[in-house]
């Protein structure tokens, strides 16, 4: 392998038995089989196999941050498991340079009876840190998790959020040459997610190689320079993030439409094109393509905006609306959307009320796959924890007449339209 590459995979494949997993047997069955027919070879029904990974060949350079996208069951986690040596490939091989840290699930090895302090050491050791390393970074870890006061309390008395934060904090302070991260960021509150992403950004800035699985396209866009798209164990695309995600989203969009049966939902975009909203205090238009398949006379159309943790940020509904049933474009105008920078998702619902008084029949409900990204300068509060969702500036006048503007997050204020910095903690 050349000196510039961190990971080289050649024909990497992994086969699993169909059905949940490799079955673990009961000895009795085996013995029973032998007793009934001692001379016959054990007649097993030909097991069905599935290739979770099928002939992957790729090369990842040192210091690259690579996002991995794909539907559930496309082999993303299997790939990380093989690269972190948790399970062996069935065929092919891979070379990985340097220490590998994997974060497939935060909190591996936490013991409920042990205190937070003790668990930091145990968990660190399990993830491959040396005792001295943990000691050196202990204060940092604790501060990152924000559990200073509970260090000597058994972890079983922690809230699940606290446990998660502590677990991620330990993992984030690993210093591996290659970091493999599965969708651990899907949990936790938005504020903590932001901090985690920021931490991962720092790690990549230090020249380490990161492989990152996520379903949130916004996260991948912000963190990764290149991306891999896996589909049913095969590599569909590998290249610059924008290109790969564009292909993936197009395919996902049309699949969403397919899944919606007759393609009721045909995708969405902003009036200016794309899914990125710069600013948010200006008026803008949202375009949604739908084709219900049949005329809707007294329809009810609902639009919701969700945060990454599925909290409703905003909701609007419209009725009655009538639709021809053919494909048509809905245009929704909003005067502004002054919310914090980050990634959000749209949900759409369409009810056909017709003459039905009991509330109507649900025609379709979607969650839009490509995320809405808000790129804006935070202007409300300087600390994420107190900033909330709204991103509206305020000014304060004191008795002496002095005026103070509300603070943004000064130290992270982007100098230009930089995609990498906005929204990171």
């Amino acid at each position, binding site marked *: 392998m050349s000196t*510039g590459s961190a990971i080289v995979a050649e024909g990497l494949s992994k086969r699993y038995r169909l059905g949940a997993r490799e079955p673990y047997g009961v000895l009795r069955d085996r013995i029973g089989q032998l007793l009934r027919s001692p001379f016959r070879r054990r007649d097993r029904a030909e097991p069905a196999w599935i290739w979770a990974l099928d002939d992957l060949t790729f090369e990842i350079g040192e210091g690259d941050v690579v996002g991995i996208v794909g539907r559930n069951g496309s082999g993303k986690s299997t790939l990380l498991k093989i690269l972190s040596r948790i*399970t062996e490939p*069935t065929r092919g091989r891979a*070379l990985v340079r340097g220490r590998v840290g*994997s974060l497939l699930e935060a909190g591996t090895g936490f013991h409920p009876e*042990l205190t937070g302090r003790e668990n930091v050491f145990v968990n660190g050791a399990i993830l491959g840190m040396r005792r001295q390393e943990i000691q050196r970074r202990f204060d940092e870890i604790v501060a990152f998790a924000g559990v200073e006061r509970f260090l000597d309390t058994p972890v079983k008395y922690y809230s699940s959020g606290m446990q998660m934060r502590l677990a991620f904090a330990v993992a984030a302070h690993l210093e591996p040459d290659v970091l493999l991260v599965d969708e651990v960021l899907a949990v936790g509150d938005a504020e903590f997610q932001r901090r985690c992403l920021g931490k991962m950004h720092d790690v990549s800035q230090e020249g380490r190689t990161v492989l990152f699985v996520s379903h949130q396209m916004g996260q991948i866009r912000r963190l990764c320079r290149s991306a891999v798209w896996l589909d049913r164990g095969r590599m569909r695309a590998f290249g610059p993030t924008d290109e790969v995600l564009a292909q993936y989203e197009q395919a996902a969009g049309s699949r969403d439409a397919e899944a919606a049966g007759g393609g009721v939902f045909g995708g969405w975009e902003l009036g200016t094109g794309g899914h990125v909203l710069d600013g948010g205090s200006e008026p803008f238009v949202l375009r949604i393509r739908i084709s219900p398949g049949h005329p809707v006379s007294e329809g009810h159309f609902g639009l919701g905006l969700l945060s990454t943790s599925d909290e409703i940020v905003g909701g609007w509904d419209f009725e009655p609306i009538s639709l021809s049933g053919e494909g048509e474009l809905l245009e929704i105008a909003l005067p502004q959307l002054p919310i914090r920078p980050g990634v959000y998702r749209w949900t759409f619902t369409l009810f056909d009320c017709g003459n039905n008084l009991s509330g109507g029949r649900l025609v379709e409900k979607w969650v839009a796959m490509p995320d809405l990204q808000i790129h804006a300068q935070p202007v409300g509060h300087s600390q994420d924890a107190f900033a909330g969702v709204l991103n509206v500036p305020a000014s304060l006048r004191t008795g002496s007449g002095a005026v103070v503007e509300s603070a943004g997050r000064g130290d992270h204020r982007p100098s230009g339209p930089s995609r990498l910095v906005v929204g990171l903690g």
Partner: protein
Amino acid sequence: MPPATIPSAADRPVHLIAPSRGWVPVNLAEIWEYRELLAVLVWRQVRVRYKQTALGVAWAVLQPVATMVVFSVLFGRLAKLPSDGVPYPVFAFCALLPWQLFAYSMTEASNSVVASQQMLTKVYFPRVLLPLSSVAVGLVDFAVSFVVLIAMMLGYGLRPGLEVLTVPLWTLLAVATAVAVSLWLSAINVRYRDVRYTLPLLTQLWLFVTPVAYATSLVPEAWRWLYAMNPMVGVVDGFRWALVGGAWPGPSVFVSGGAVIALLVGGLFYFRRMERTFADVV
């Protein structure tokens, strides 16, 4: 904080990830590399074991002492089993120490891999550390009980000769036996959960074919070689010889030693063989 410097590419080792083929033993060098994790795993088990118990570490002593009392009354007083001229309580306790080490380790270690399912499927480390750490925990109990044995020997006025210097050797043999059996059982348990239910019976039977409650001299001479195929026979006889002046066990020690080596080497290969599919099966 300035970005940490990472060593240049050439300094870092390259790991090859490929399907393993054939029979290879557990990688012993890797166990050494991961010794800190082994220490942490042992520490964690020791730490957790007696949490929220009223008696705490006293349990480590209480169990063998209670067994010793029962044995002394049943076998020493009532059945009047010969104890080769040694006071029966010391005779029994001296054998109970390595036995407890073995039985505890075997029970805990067999379940160790399955119990660590969470870790197994989320992070890489040499899996063999799991049974090894359980055995090491058994050693901690062993050390605590050993103090009691010394006290008993003082109480009975027993003064060991130079043979006492061989105690580490017998301890090593006991640990090797525990490790060997644990490697087999913990790996089998991943695939066949029957092991868990077999264990209590297995432990009980094994106790009867080991000279804990009685002396090896009760076994007919002609059958001693077969009897010694049970490695714990060599261990227990060795302990008695080294500490309380039992008879020198003779060539059967080598039979036991040979049996341990065979079991251990086989276990190292078998464990490695099964290890490949642990994460997929467990």
